[in-house]
């Protein structure tokens, strides 16, 4: 995993300042993920999994070290360039789904296209296609409150992929779902990984699921990669 890859981190470190105390959330993380791979990330609470996701997703900037995606140093981008990276190169899904409660499923999926300057007609057309892919086209006019947890996460997946990114970052996407629904969601991600060559990095506590679907798994503890496991 340390050879040159599609997504690479070198000496990735994130330190948060809480008053006079510095908290090291991530320390000297070196990763290399090839294009089209499914990387599982696991570890106890507070081990730095979400921090790693936020850094890889361009939502946060590292204290030191670098992130390189497709040969471009993400860690050196300014705020405007980072927003373009988030818009076009990476999609993110979360444990709490993070879909907008006042929007319908279709509006939620179409939302990222607004910032890409896509016309309303085209936005709705492409959002409809994505909902069809995740099997929710018949629920397109429903608001999140009218959808089950699994359906909401599918809406989030559709939204994350509507701008056709090459990387999907999933921060515990099954954390709020029952076992059966969790499996369906991860299966959906695995299909996207296999069929469309989508690079997926997913945080999960469910090791059996990671063992079944991921290509590689890393274990984080206290902000450090303590174990790297190649599944297949």
């Amino acid at each position, binding site marked *: 995993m340390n050879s040159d890859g599609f997504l690479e981190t070198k000496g990735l470190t994130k330190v948060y300042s809480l008053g006079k105390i510095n908290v090291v959330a991530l320390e000297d993380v070196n990763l290399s993920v090839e294009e089209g791979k499914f990387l599982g990330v696991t570890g106890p609470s507070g081990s730095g999994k979400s921090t790693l996701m936020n850094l890889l997703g361009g*939502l*946060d900037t590292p204290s030191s070290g670098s992130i390189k995606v497709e040969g471009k140093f993400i860690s050196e981008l300014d705020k405007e360039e980072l*927003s*373009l990276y*988030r818009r076009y190169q990476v999609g993110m899904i979360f444990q709490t789904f*993070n*879909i907008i409660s006042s929007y319908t499923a279709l509006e939620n999926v179409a939302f990222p296209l*607004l910032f890409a300057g896509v016309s309303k007609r085209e936005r709705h057309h492409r959002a409809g296609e994505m909902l069809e892919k995740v099997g929710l086209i018949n629920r397109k006019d429903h608001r999140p409150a009218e959808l089950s947890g699994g359906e909401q996460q599918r809406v989030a997946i559709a*939204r994350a992929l509507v701008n056709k990114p090459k990387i999907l970052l999933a921060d515990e996407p099954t954390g709020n779902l029952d076992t059966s629904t969790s499996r369906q969601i991860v299966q959906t991600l695995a299909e996207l990984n296999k069929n469309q060559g989508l690079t997926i990095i997913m945080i999960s506590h469910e090791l059996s699921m990671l063992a079944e679907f991921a290509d590689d798994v890393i274990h984080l503890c206290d902000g450090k990669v303590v174990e790297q496991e190649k599944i297949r």
Partner: protein
Amino acid sequence: MMLFICAMGKLLNRKKSGKEPVRISDYIEHSFSNLRKKKLRTFLTTFGVVIGIGALVSMFSFGKGVQKNVTDSFKKMGLFNYIAVYPSSGRSRGEQANMDPDDPQNQIQYEQVSDSANSPILDDNFLQEIREIKGVESAFAEIRFPAQIRFNEKEQFSLVSVIPADVCRSELMKLRAGKAYEGDDENSLIINDSLLRRMDIKDFEAVIGEQIEVSTLAMDPNLLNPMKLMSIMQGENLPFNQESYTFTIAGVAERMGMGGFIPVRSDVYMPPGPAEDMKKISLTNIKDFFQPAEKLKGYSAITIKVSSVKYIDSIKKQMKDRGLGTFALIDQLKEIKTAFMFMDMFLLAVAMIGITVASLGIINTMVMSILERYREIGIMKAVGASENDVKKIFFFESGVIGFLGGIFGLALGWVVSTVINQIANHFLVKQGAPYTDYFSFPWWLCLGAVGFSILVSLGAGLYPAVRAARVDPVVALRHD
């Protein structure tokens, strides 16, 4: 203001790195959509703007209405075409005639008024001379005298003006009944509606063609006998002769409500012919009371009507060169405009209180909106919105509030102004005033009100928009 415009420009024109920018129409649609989701709060905030803009529009339209009425009526009456000419330094006609420049006692005063001492006496010869100046359409002397008016067994003390027939037929004289006298020698007069009202006469048509008695007073110096001084001081044996004359009422005129220089501003108007034969006293100067009528040479003032305002300056210069004082209302236009500007500023200041309160309402609503949509801002950023995009979303929402506030504020201002106008006219028309539009809605006021509302709202939305843009997406996405 410049700082504000620069900030707006920066906000709207920030360079996008390569990719397609969000369409303005999408921002607007998105803003309407977001505001619709919080109907009550949007309504209350917008209503604040509506009140502010409504007040601004009503006050401004009132200010503009007053200005329009004044300037339009001046223009319609042709008042800007008149010049008043009078002896300089305020000296009376007696002084004009009697001052001896060689008299050492008069030397200092003579030097001080040297121009006017050489100035011509404002008599008929001078009038004729004026009428021949290029650009002079007509000229007439200002002759006004007090008289007792008797009609229908009622008496009123009033001022009589001598006005030529052609001036009576002009726009200056607004007749409510009858017509102007035909010629300068006609034995008829025009009476003001207000004087008739004071005599309890309301049917103005009925008085046309009726006889009216005008009694004048003239000073008789022969009656100023020192032996009678005590009785004069006690109000008996006053040194006046009273003469009565009978006229026919030709017309009833509308009373001029405005002050300042207006050639037609008495209660009774009569032609020069019969007025010349009447014995009367002048009101120009208190000293004239003690001059025998035959010693009063010249008129107190002359009014010149020019064919076009372009002749005003040259004629004024000619009069000044001859040591005469002049007054033209058009000169006062600048002062009138300054006064109106102060009125506008005052009205604006009052209306700005409402606008300021409305702006605070917008800031409060938008800040509340940020707190409520904190997580949503995080989502926006996670799916690729830049700080500038987030800023614009909130900025446009403020703008939409301003737009709606401006449109409905304009409508409210129009409705309120129309209602007030109707109520005011209802009462004023009853009192004899003509129907007047006291409010004016020029196109620039309508556009300006909406534009100003948007501008103020954008200004109010600036801080919340910047604050929204600075939200940390990592924190926002964890926010409950």
